[in-house]
């Protein structure tokens, strides 16, 4: 009542008369107290509905959370797998080093003493055999050995460490290894460390006997080379360079030492030593075919360096000489790649998670668009080729997308050359290509559709109508919409003029203009493509033409009679449907009087044509221009028949098989028919809960689906023809993927008045807005 005081002053009543108001309130309050404990059915229902809505919301939140966690789990599992692979690989590497070292030792022994000694060392023939086995199914044997457990692995590692210490490479090797691990894990390689270690190890090497040192070094070199090889393929060029540098410098240093050692030993010239060693190695070659690669190199440092270069070149993919080792090598390389790919893939998947479904959807859509209609020209042709193969798609990628692709296919090719696990790895790569984030860039059409990737949520609630909202239409560009209601008015809403709402997530909007002229409920609405005019059809049989005021108009401006620019009168019953042509200034209307009429508003005699059918067809319920044929219109009838008319002649061109394909009972009328914006497809919304798709050329049904729990009242299609929005008296609106014909999202939106709930739905032509109009006098806008 305190507020009413000033209120009555503002009311401008200059005089007495509000004396009794205080008493009024008191009695009202008493009434209120008396009434309070009574529970009414609607009250309980309201409570239940709000509770239910809350539960639904919580449930959806929880589901989102769950999905996130699941994704996280998948990612972590993937990472774990990657780590395991890495570990396995490292174990294998150690085994290999161990094995190679044994060979070297055996060889060294042979060279020095000419006999196979040490029982602990495996004899060369045995070696050879083992080597061959490894070559054939190295993967299996190695993995089995690594599978024996960490104990064996540790022992092996210890042993290896010992061996390496003997040749003085412990620290370096270990260091390289750790560098590699670090690089694998995406950490930065510390290049400085290894250099320092080199000089240290070189100093240690100085004590070693020359030849042994050389051989040991060679073995080490080879392994290091392999390591480097892997490194290069993984991704850190840095690490490779470091390793190579260190090897080079190490070699140089050792060169000098070798020379001095040689001199000290009294051997005349390097050449002699070289010759001798070469001969020895030739002999070995004969005995030991499997070890050719290892024997190839010699004590001479030049050759060691050469070999090193050779190893480097081996990276390119040719592996003729190192039969045994490179065989294993390649397998490992592939494995490494595999790991890194896995890791990268997981990273990508994680990043691209949100966008991926849409991408798949788009792809699939394009594919089936192509499949559906072969004759459908350029755009669809593109779609076919896009969807048919990853390579073809790459061709179509604009420059932006290519960068991220470039590396993978290259690696794929390399694999092909090596003929190792090529298929498998390519399979992975193919997957990677498909999942590449850069994909959406390909589709220009997808650019303005970002809104569809997320779920829609209610943002604006449009409250101001007193009765059911029958129709709504968006402005072609602005965030502005119009609603038409059974309360006899139309209202203009500017979504940028919101009323700050308390605690509610959605914003309230107040209308900026109210259009009054209809005598009776307003049932249909159409907005001109320019957004400057709109047309409304009502139960008063008229179609009103309006000039839409500017969206920033003062809602309480003075009355401008020119807002109503004209009235189209010819119908003799309620005007139930309006449709406007996107380029021609033409308007279609359908009415309870049984006619469909074509108008050209603004000219002297605006009625251009009238389309009628036999009276047994009932009355038209909805009408639309056939968007891909400028001379056709489509109209649906209460008889559940749908006809396509020629606009010029007014003759029926085709009858869509809507009736045959719907339930036999007479109550299945069509509530809405819309034309696909680009394809010759008509979509009908039925009282029997179905949405059906028809081919405009043959009249045959393309698809039929139970779309809602109650009759489908309204349809809207997005400007690109990818998504369909439907509203139903089951209180929900649903968004459909037009390609897969699957429901993308369902939103419970309005409450029932009698058995009616949702009367209309709409897409904004450009902005990511959708809207629904309800019998509960509300309109809602979703973003």
């Amino acid at each position: 009542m305190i507020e009413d005081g000033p209120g009555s002053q503002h009311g401008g009543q200059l005089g007495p008369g509000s004396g009794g108001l205080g008493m009024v309130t008191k009695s009202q309050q008493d009434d209120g107290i008396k009434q309070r404990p009574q529970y009414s059915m609607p009250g309980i229902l309201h409570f239940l509905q709000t509770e239910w809505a809350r539960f639904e919301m919580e449930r959806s939140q929880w589901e989102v959370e769950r999905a996130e966690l699941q994704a996280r789990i998948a990612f972590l599992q993937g990472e774990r797998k990657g780590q395991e692979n890495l570990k396995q690989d490292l174990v294998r590497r150690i085994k290999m080093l161990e094995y190679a070292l044994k060979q070297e030792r055996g060889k060294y022994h042979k060279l020095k003493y000419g006999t196979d000694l040490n029982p602990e060392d495996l004899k060369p023939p045995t070696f050879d055999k083992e080597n061959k086995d490894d070559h054939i199914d190295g993967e299996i044997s190695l993995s089995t050995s690594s599978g024996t457990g960490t104990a064996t692995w540790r022992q092996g590692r210890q042993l290896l460490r010992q061996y390496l210490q003997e040749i003085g490479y412990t620290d370096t090797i270990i260091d390289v290894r750790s560098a590699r691990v670090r690089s694998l894990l995406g950490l930065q390689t510390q290049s400085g460390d290894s250099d320092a270690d080199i000089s240290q190890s070189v100093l240690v090497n100085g004590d070693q006997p020359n030849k042994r040192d050389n051989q040991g070094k060679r073995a080490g070199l080879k392994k290091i080379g392999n390591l480097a090889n892997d490194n290069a393929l993984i991704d850190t060029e840095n690490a490779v360079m470091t390793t190579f540098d260190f090897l080079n410098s190490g070699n140089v240093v050792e060169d000098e030492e070798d020379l001095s050692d040689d001199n000290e030993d009294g051997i005349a010239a390097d050449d002699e030593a070289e010759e001798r060693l070469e001969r020895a190695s030739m002999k070995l070659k004969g005995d030991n075919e499997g070890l050719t690669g290892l024997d190839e190199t010699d004590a001479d440092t030049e050759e060691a360096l050469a070999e090193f270069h050779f190893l480097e070149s081996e990276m390119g993919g040719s592996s003729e000489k190192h039969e045994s080792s490179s065989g294993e090598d390649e397998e490992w390389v592939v494995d490494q790649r595999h790991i890194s790919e896995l890791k990268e893939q997981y990273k990508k998947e994680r990043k691209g998670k949100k966008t991926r479904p849409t991408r798949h959807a788009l792809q699939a859509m394009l594919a089936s668009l192509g499949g559906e209609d072969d004759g459908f020209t350029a755009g669809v042709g593109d779609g076919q080729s896009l969807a048919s193969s990853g390579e073809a798609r790459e061709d179509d990628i604009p420059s932006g997308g290519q960068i991220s692709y470039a590396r993978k296919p290259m690696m794929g090719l390399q694999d092909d050359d090596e003929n190792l696990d090529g298929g498998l790895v390519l399979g992975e790569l193919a997957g990677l290509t498909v999942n590449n984030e850069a994909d959406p860039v390909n589709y220009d059409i997808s650019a303005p559709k970002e809104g569809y990737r997320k779920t829609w949520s209610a943002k604006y609630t449009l409250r101001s109508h007193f009765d059911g909202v029958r129709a709504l239409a968006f402005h072609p560009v602005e965030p502005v919409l119009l609603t038409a209601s059974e309360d006899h008015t139309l209202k203009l809403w500017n979504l940028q003029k919101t009323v700050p709402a308390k605690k509610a997530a959605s914003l309230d909007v107040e209308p900026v203009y109210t259009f009054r002229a209809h005598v009776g409920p307003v049932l249909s609405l159409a907005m001109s493509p320019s957004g400057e005019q709109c047309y409304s059809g009502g139960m008063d049989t008229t179609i009103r033409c309006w000039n839409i005021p500017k969206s920033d108009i003062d809602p309480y401006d003075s009355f401008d009679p020119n807002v109503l620019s004209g009235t189209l009168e010819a119908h003799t019953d309620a005007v139930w449907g309006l449709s406007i042509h996107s380029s021609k200034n033409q308007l279609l209307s359908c009415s309870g009087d049984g006619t469909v009429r074509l108008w050209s508003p603004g000219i002297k005699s605006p009625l251009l044509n009238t389309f009628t059918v036999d009276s047994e067809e009932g009355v038209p319920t909805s009408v639309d221009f056939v968007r891909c044929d400028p001379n056709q219109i489509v109209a649906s009838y209460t008889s559940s028949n749908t006809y396509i008319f020629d606009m010029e002649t007014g003759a029926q061109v085709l009858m869509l098989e809507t009736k045959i394909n719907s339930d036999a009972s007479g109550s299945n009328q069509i509530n809405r028919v819309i034309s696909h914006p680009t394809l010759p497809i008509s979509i009908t919304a039925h009282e029997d809960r179905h949405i059906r798709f028809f081919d405009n050329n043959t009249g045959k049904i393309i698809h039929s689906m139970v779309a809602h729990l109650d009759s489908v009242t309204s349809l809207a299609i997005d400007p690109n023809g990818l998504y369909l929005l439907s509203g139903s008296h089951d209180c929900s609106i649903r968004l459909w993927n037009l390609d897969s014909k699957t429901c993308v999202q369902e939103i419970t939106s309005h409450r029932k008045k009698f058995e009616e709930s949702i009367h209309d739905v709409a897409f904004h032509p450009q902005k990511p807005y959708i809207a629904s109009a309800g019998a509960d006098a509300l309109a809602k806008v979703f973003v």
Partner: protein
Amino acid sequence: MKMANETAPIIRRNRPGTKNKDWCNWEDESFEEMDSTLAVQQFIQQAIRKDFTNVEEILNPPEGQDEGVWKYEHLRQFCMELNGLAVKLQVECNPETCTQMTATEQWIFLCAAHKTPKECPAIDYTRHTLDGAACLLNSNKYFPSRVSIKDSSVAKLGSVCRRVYRIFSHAYFHHRPLFDTYENETYLCRRFTQFVTKYNLMSKDNLIVPIMEDQQTLEGESEA
């Protein structure tokens, strides 16, 4: 709704294509059976459609009905139907002839829709008052629910009533033929007068349209 009548459970819908004569042409639903949150509105509209001249019946709430909601829904219905009167006034009542919102010579009503109340022409006053009432009655702040209404919000109904009543009075005193036509079509002023009297939403002094006597004579005529 011929189709609805054929099937066993009546489905109360105005489907696209419905002819004017079939609009809401379905069997009455008892208030107890109305399970929607908009039951009160349904009930009121059903009673009006049944016989708009039977003001008593229309204003007679179902048993156990919360009075605040009852008043609120009725006022919504009044404002909605007043759109019809506003449409008629838009044609006849132009700002040149009716520069101020007046009824009798006694009062000049200032339009409360503006930050500082101003002397709007009658037609603007009418439109602004109806628009303002639409905003208030749909305000999420004061009327977040249509099934339970706070007492403080119910108190707002009185000022809305006083303002919209001036539309009746202006039409009556300045556009009498128009008013009479409209009144005969809707009985709205009679219903409104009886409504505010019944629920003490306006003082009798403000009810300057002498409609109740009219009504009595009309009723007498119909009975005769």
